[in-house]
C-alpha cells in the first residue's frame, strides 16, 4: 500500500511540475521563465525516472500502476462531471 501511495504521489508531483512548468515557461518573463524551465526539466527528469529507471518504488509496467492512473483519471472526470451537473442545475433554474 505504501508503494502505491509514494508512486502515485510522485506521479501527481510530476504532473504538477510538467503542467505548471509549461505554463510558467511559456507565459513567464525573464527570471520567472527560467524558473518555469527549471520546473519543466524537473518534471521531465521525474517522468524519465518513472518510466525508465528500474526501481522498487514504481513499476510503470505493473497493472497496479495503471489501475491507479485510471482511478485518478476517473476521479478527476467525476469531479468535472459533478461540477457540470451543478452548473446546469443552477443555470437552468
Amino acid at each position, binding site marked *: 500500500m505504501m508503494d502505491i501511495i509514494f508512486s502515485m504521489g510522485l506521479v501527481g508531483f510530476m504532473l504538477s511540475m510538467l503542467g505548471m512548468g509549461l505554463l510558467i515557461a511559456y507565459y513567464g518573463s525573464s527570471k520567472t521563465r527560467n524558473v518555469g524551465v527549471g520546473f519543466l526539466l524537473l518534471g521531465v527528469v521525474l517522468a524519465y525516472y518513472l518510466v525508465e529507471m528500474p526501481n522498487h518504488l514504481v513499476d510503470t509496467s505493473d497493472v497496479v500502476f495503471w489501475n491507479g492512473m485510471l482511478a485518478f483519471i476517473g*476521479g478527476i472526470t467525476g469531479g468535472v462531471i459533478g461540477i457540470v451537473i451543478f452548473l446546469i442545475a443552477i443555470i437552468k433554474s
Partner: protein
Amino acid sequence: MDMSMNFDGELLMDFFVSMLLIGIGVALLATGIFTSYFGAGKSQKIGFALLISGIAILAYFIVLYPLDENTFIEALVSGVSVLSGMIIGMFVILFVLMKVDTVDDLEDLDLEDLEDLDLDEELKKLEEELNQADDNSEDEE
C-alpha cells in the same frame, strides 16, 4: 455490480468507474453544501437536491459495497495519492515563485532620476507661469 474489463488478467474498469462515481458524489456533496447554505429560494432547494444526490451516491459505495473491498480501497488510495502529489507540487511551485525575486528588472530603471526630472520640469513650468503673470501685471500698471 460487475464493472470489470479484463486487461492483462486484472480488472481495470472497477477502478475507473468507482472513482468516477466517487468524484461525482464528492463534487455534488460539496456544491450542494455551498448552494444550500448560501443560496436563497429556488437555488437553496436545488442545493438540497444536489446535497441529497451526493450523499446517496457516496452512501451507495459505503453502505452497499458494490465492489471488492481491496479494489475499492486501492482505487481510493491511488486517486487521493495522485491528488495529494499534485497539491504538494503546486505548493512547491508557489513557494519557489514567491521566493524568487521576479521584479529585479525594475532595479535597472533609475526611478529617482525620473521622479526628479518630472519635479524639475513641473517647477520650471510653475516659475515660467508665475513670471508671465508678474510681467502681465506690471504691463497693466
